[in-house]
């Protein structure tokens, strides 16, 4: 699991600020701590899907997700991969602990963990890409509950489908927050040709768009390539 310091700095909103050695050492220490504490785990399942205008049905289990943006995201897909990944609870515990002893460290650790879970997902996505390449298939980007009009409330249903609690210890709260916190669930479409270049999965689809400091400062948060 690689945690790039540039990515961490981007999460922390460093802009063009140059680091002093003390801070650089602190961030490197946090990266090491995340690597030590993380118990990264992920699972995924592949489903036949049926895409309608405003919903997508995942066929084997007869589960339907409502949302026009998800439908658009998957419109050319023949199959859908549902994935869940987590760093485990130790990171959450450490972040809480440092909030009462070393707040700066807590904030940096939090950013490192966010970079780490994205890195895990990227790695998984790479794995899938190579796996499907042989079949001349390609992947869409990851689409998670909370993007576009796909309700965050689907979090629970998605986890149930994957038996995520039993398999990787991942749950959601009544308000659909994932616990452990540094976790991701996502849907990826399998498409028979190159992914469309449309603004799918860009800032326009993101609920955090208005207040997003990454969009303001860095163009985007790095999860999406769009510069909108």
């Amino acid at each position: 699991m690689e945690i790039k310091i540039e990515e961490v700095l981007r999460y922390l909103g460093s802009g063009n600020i140059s680091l002093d050695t003390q801070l650089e050492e602190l961030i490197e220490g946090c990266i090491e701590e995340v690597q030590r504490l993380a118990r990264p785990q992920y699972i995924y399942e592949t489903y036949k899907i049926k895409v309608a205008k405003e919903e997508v049905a995942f066929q084997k289990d007869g589960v339907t997700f409502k949302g026009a943006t998800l439908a658009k995201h998957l419109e050319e897909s023949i199959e859908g991969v549902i994935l869940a990944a987590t760093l485990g609870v130790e990171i959450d515990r450490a972040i809480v602990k440092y909030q009462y002893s070393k707040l700066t460290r807590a904030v940096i650790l939090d950013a490192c963990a966010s970079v780490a879970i994205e890195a895990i997902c990227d790695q998984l996505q790479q794995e899938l890409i190579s796996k499907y390449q042989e079949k001349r298939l390609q992947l869409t980007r990851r689409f998670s509950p909370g993007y576009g009009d796909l309700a965050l409330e689907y979090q629970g249903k998605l986890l149930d489908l994957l038996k995520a609690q039993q398999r990787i210890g991942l749950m959601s709260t009544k308000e659909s927050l994932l616990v452990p916190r540094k976790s991701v669930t996502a849907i990826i479409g399998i498409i028979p040709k190159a992914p469309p270049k449309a603004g799918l999965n860009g800032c326009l689809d993101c609920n955090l768009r208005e207040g997003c400091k990454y969009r303001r400062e860095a163009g985007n948060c790095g999860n999406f390539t769009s510069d909108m």
Partner: protein
Amino acid sequence: MEILQAICKRLLLFDGAMGTMLQKSGMKLGELPELFNIHEPSLISNIHKEYVEAGADIITTNTFQANRYKLKESGYSVVAVIEAGVKVAKASGATWVALDIGPIGRMMKPLGEVSLDEAYEVFKEQVIAGAKAGADLILIETISDIYEAKAAVLAAKENSQLPVICTMTFQGDGRTFLGTDPLTAATVLQALGVDCLGINCSLGPKEMLPILKELLKYTNAPVLIQSNAGLPAIIEAETVFPVGPKEFAEYAREMALEGVQLLGGCCGTTPEHIREIRTVLEGFQPVKRTPVSLTTVASGTKTVILDNKTTIIGERINPTGKKRLKEALRNNQLEVLLAEAIEQTNAGAEVLDVNVGLPEIDEVKMLERVVQDIQAVVDTPLQIDTINVEALEAALRIYNGKPIINSVNGKEKSMTEVLPLVKKYGACVIGLTLDEGGIPQTAEERLEIAKKIMKKALEYGIPKENLLIDCLVVTASAQQEMVKETVKAVRLVKEELGLKTTLGVSNVSFGLPQRELINRCFLSTALSAGLDAPIMDPLSLEMLNTIRAYRVLANHDLEAKEYIAALGGGQQEISSSIVVDKSLEELIIEGRKAEILLRVEEMLKQQQPLEIINRYFIPALDKIGKGYERGELFLPQLLRSGEAVKAGLEVIKQRSSASTDIAERGKILVATVKGDIHDIGKNIAKMLLENYGYNVIDLGKDVDIEDIISTVKEKDIRLVGLSALMTTTVKNMALTIEALRREVPSCRIMVGGAVLNPEYAQMIEADFYAADGQEGVKIANNVFKDINTN
């Protein structure tokens, strides 16, 4: 309880998987298997019967997820599903039927939102339904969170007479998802009084073997193992479990030889697996296990064994004689206690004493809250220190792990009040050698009281190893002749009763100069006499080093590894000369916490606290704040300076004679709204506001609207800061604002959080939107400028 007797006589067999069998029969994954008890009882009954025919003694009901959360949208009640499940299982002809209870499916506090009480209620409903329907025992299984196990075991034991088995699920690295190791699982489950404990699911028998060997080392309870039929592989889109019946049964034999008394199967196992175990182990007599008698204390993820070593119990969380802690407790600033917990743990404390007794606070509520908050930030086991029995029970209940109770004494009343709680929660307890006659003069008399307490404890069924004796330290300045009696009593208790001993070491020097010297000398003497667990200040380097040295001399710290690691490099001293040329402002900007502490100490000799704050701290903070706003500094730099100022303020608070020395700019309540369990942003804002002199009342995260309203009213609060992280919880923020507007219209409200923006803040009718903590300070300055000028 005939099943419990049967376990001692022969190896008992549970059934294997239910889910695997249902899938074979074509069940869709999206369906709740528990509803089959009602819809297709014959299907379930056939599976049960197959297992009975294969030789299972105990059939597990098909009720794994039959709890109120999972059944919420099913249209069926918990009672209906469980009743049907028990009925079907009983009809199978099984010798015994176990009510199956799995995890509730939601994360418990502190990482999640479900409280111990809420989980308890969920389990209680299942237990009562199952017992009423005629189950013979209760199997709580596939648990990853030992805290959840506690809720379930308490619910089972308090609401039925049935034997209780609890199995936990470990991952390949030997820990559960929540970080519990086999030692801790054994320690805590045994403390809770389960009849059997064990391991199930997630791993195949091969991977489970090392974990069960570890588990067996630390428990005397019968052990149940239900492994999966190997680690699953996906073959042509189908999940396949690779370990066949014969291989599975061979592992079962190996487990039985290790001392396992109950065996069954989990995912991927079939009646054939059970039949094969029956064949292989027919007539097998349970292996005699060597009994363990260790003194253990545990948190949810860490166990400390007190045998053959010196254990440091940190004494600092105790308001007696500590102005800052008293003030923190009165003002609900629990973060001060949490910082003490973290600091002591970092320094080397292995158990933390927790005492919050102050006459003017509600100790029952406070102790419960403090225990809950501390266990969220450290994994160090706790010692619950109170004379209030009600507070003690509340704390024992909420505690995640096996604590030490401080204390019981030789008085009849104390023993009859405290010992039943010691037994019920399986805790360790400190017995003070005093009784109705006070503290005896001689060591022999104290030994007699220790004997009396031990006898009584044994009568209550408390094992000897859970009792520690405190022979009581007197102050050398007042009762000099009695000091050596204490030391002698420690030796007698160790030698004659074989009990562990503890002492509140620091008391000895009270009233004398150079207290540490007396403390150290007394500590060494007591350690040589057999003191196991000194209650002391781990932040005192001299005391800590005395322990380190003793551990070498007593041959506990092998090859002096820890000693060398701690002291081999020479003591680190902060060299103030390096930074002597820097101004306080520069030190703050660079976030040099340690140097700032020294500098502030120095400055306090000549300057008033308020002067230091107004002339140095505030201007430095302003400068940093502006730099941050202009984008010249980024968040970690802002925080680093903020932390440094916070530490400086803390020194000032500790040194100043009265809290009035520091002017307070206004009271602000901060909270993360209901349903939201992440509060790092709120904590940043809080620190910055406090640094600017605001008295910040922090209600924490996931806060009920009523709590916010009542605190605002009670403390006459003019500004409330609310934070929310997710779109799903912003609605709770809107509800909170609505309630505040209705109940306390004069109160101003600022909001912040990842999903908010100025427009959204306006829409939910907040007064101000704070993009970050620094913005929050500006808002507060404006609000209180208006209030103070009006």
